């Protein structure tokens, strides 16, 4: 039914930026955004005049959208976008910026997600998160996303025979990956016993199933290969991308995400198979969502993720290196920047510019995002396949 997705020709993705996260920060999202631009100036010599496209994502920028941030930081772009999709914002920024560059609407787009985390800002942002949440979720115990994902996890475990030990293996592997990343907030080794013994937060979600909210910023640059070359940057190309919102609204419980509607198209367009992927960077607000993406992106058949997890080594040296910076579960969840981390880390691994250990010979990364729990499920999904341009 859908037309074939046009190839992303003349598009280069480069310059992954991560400013070290902080558990709490008194600074604003604008400050964090400024830090990322400053790092782009320091590392690749980018000036405001070079940036003619700007794509911004944040939960904590207060009264300001991308518009206010543009003036705040002295940018004069001819192409501007604001992405409100949290955990799906990285992939969405990538595909929008890529088309802008490909079509000549912009020459160089900075995609940037910044969020601060004041003391108590987690509670405050929860209470105003969405209309459905305010009306029909938070008045039921105010467990935040922990409770919402506890309900999904409860159903998912019973439906597909996935155990806490299976989720534990994912979390332990990601923590092991975080061990080599000096920027990860949680690097202390995690054992399966410690995972299993952790205190319950909202049954069956326990402490190590939850991310740690923090302040931080992630950014990357989308431009033409010629411009990237002039700047002396390593670059990657986009093989294919997908995006979907409010998939399967008739499912009473979210046991599958929007990827399940679109992943066939993703692989077909890219002309590769899951087995060609060198590293998998997927949204990990809770391990149940990691498991769901592994299935729905086609890395194993639906319903067989338990066996797949048991048979797979997800560490950096393993057969499917997963969330190699530690993911949000270990590196920290800096709001919307958590939805950019998958893109920047995937990019780093295939450009061979890792924060920590390098996935050997990595050239293809699968990146997947998941965002915005509006009522009882995450609404936005997206994925992208990136390959290093040599």
């Amino acid at each position, binding site marked *: 039914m859908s037309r074939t997705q046009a190839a992303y020709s003349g598009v280069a993705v480069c310059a992954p930026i991560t400013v070290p996260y902080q558990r709490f920060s008194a600074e604003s999202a604008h400050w964090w955004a400024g830090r990322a631009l400053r790092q782009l100036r320091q590392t690749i010599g980018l000036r405001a005049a070079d940036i003619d496209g700007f794509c911004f994502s944040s939960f904590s920028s207060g009264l300001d959208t991308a518009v206010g941030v543009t003036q705040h930081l002295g940018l004069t772009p001819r192409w501007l976008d604001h992405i409100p999709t949290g955990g799906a914002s990285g992939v969405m920024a990538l595909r929008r910026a890529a088309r802008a560059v490909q079509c000549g609407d912009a020459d160089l787009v900075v995609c940037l997600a910044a969020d601060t985390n004041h003391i108590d800002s*987690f*509670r405050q942002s*929860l*209470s*105003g998160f969405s*209309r*459905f949440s*305010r*009306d*029909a*979720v*938070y*008045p*039921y*115990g*105010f*467990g*935040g996303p*922990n*409770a919402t994902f*506890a*309900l*999904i996890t*409860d*159903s998912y475990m*019973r439906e597909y025979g996935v155990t806490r030990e299976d989720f534990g293996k994912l979390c332990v592997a990601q923590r092991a990956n975080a061990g080599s990343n000096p920027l990860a907030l949680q690097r202390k080794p995690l054992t399966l016993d410690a995972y299993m013994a952790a*205190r*319950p*937060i*909202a*049954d*069956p*979600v326990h402490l190590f199933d939850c991310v740690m909210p923090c302040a931080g910023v992630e950014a990357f640059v989308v431009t033409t290969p010629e411009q990237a070359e002039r700047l002396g940057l390593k670059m990657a190309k986009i093989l294919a991308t997908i995006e979907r919102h409010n998939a399967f*609204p008739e499912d*009473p*419980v979210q046991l599958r995400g929007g990827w399940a509607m679109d992943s066939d198209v993703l692989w077909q367009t890219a002309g590769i198979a899951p087995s060609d992927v060198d590293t998998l960077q997927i949204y990990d607000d809770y391990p149940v969502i990691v498991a769901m993406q592994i299935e729905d992106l086609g890395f194993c058949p639906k319903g067989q993720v338990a066996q797949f997890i048991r048979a797979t080594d997800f560490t950096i040296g393993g057969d499917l290196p997963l969330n190699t910076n530690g993911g949000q579960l270990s590196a920290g969840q800096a709001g919307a920047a958590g939805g950019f981390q998958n893109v920047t880390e995937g990019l780093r691994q295939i450009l061979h510019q890792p924060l920590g250990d390098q996935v050997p010979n990595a050239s293809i990364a699968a990146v997947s995002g998941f965002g915005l729990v509006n*009522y*009882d499920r995450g609404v936005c999904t997206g994925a992208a396949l990136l390959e290093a341009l040599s």
Partner: protein
Amino acid sequence: MTGVREKRDPLARKKLRHVPPELRSRAMHALSARAAQGRFVLQACTECGTATYPPRDACPLCWGELNWQDQPNGGKILSETSIRVSTDLYFRDHMPWRMGKVLLDAGPVALVHLHAALRSNDRAVVRMMTDRGGNAALFAIPAGENDLMSDPQWREFVVPIEGRIALVSDARNAIGRAMVKELQARGAELVVAGLPGPSLASDTTDAVLTLDRVQTIPLDVTDATSVAQAASRIGGPLDIILNTARHVRTGGVSANPHFAEQRRAFEVSAMGFSRLASTFAPMLAGRPNGAFADILSSAALSGDAGQAGFAAAEAARHSLLQAFRHEMRGAGVRVMALFTGPLEDTDHQHIPPPKVAPSRVASAAADALLNGREQTCVGDVAIDAMERWLTDPALFAREKNL
């Protein structure tokens, strides 16, 4: 009141009572207004018929207009959790909090407060309650007979009577006397029966007023000093107030007006309400399940040419009650209204049936407390009046004053 209780330290730090998050959308407030009447309603599309939840402003299937319709209240539990960590002050006082997801027989899925006995895949009945902040809240309970009161989470949505201390503002009239008897029979630890003067010789021998766990106290709601003295004599914990005071008289505005009666009606119904409410509000606010239940005439809804002064005083009382409900929401005190028509009592000797037995009003008031229902109508006249008023208030006011 006997002085057996040890004197309390007035400066001791008191336990703060919190309420659940209060902000809601306008559509959700519309649901709460119906939940307050004890109805189980959801929005349904006027074009395609699909029921929807959470409340929306357009049908998600065909974008048609939505209206509120009574719906079947059964469902199946899909998943469950016990929330053990929350940043909300109210829920932190009640951890762990059980909630779950239910597939309603009406169609949509809903997140619900979950009774302790319910598990995934169980059939459940979903009750439309109001939470401590006065907002609609779905609570799933097991189908069939249940001892709901043993579930501490359920008790947050209702007003237990057993073991609690209640004040009946006027125990001398028929409703008040029936109310004392009812609350005592339902296991109240103490029922304080307010008696406006003059005292009668029979007060000391009355079968109800001399019951075990009942104590009388002089109380005249038309007299601020009397109300203050009553509060001072009660002194200690007070969980529930039943305001039964009323002054029912016929008479019009220009025709047969009886200004002395009209003034008395306002002193009892309106000013009496305010005196009681303002004096006792702090005592109720300190209690875990504080409630103020007010008995109103359904004439409050529309006015009534035949008893203009009484109806006007009751309308003023209804108006004050809604302001008081607003004030008490932040403290989690439930302010409840019980509408009734003519009673089988000396006030309505001249009125033909249907009339409501005072014991029935008392029993309905106790049930309203035990079910946490904000608004109840007792008897055919009040039920009919409320239905007509909700359907077409302008027509109803005209009909009542033809």
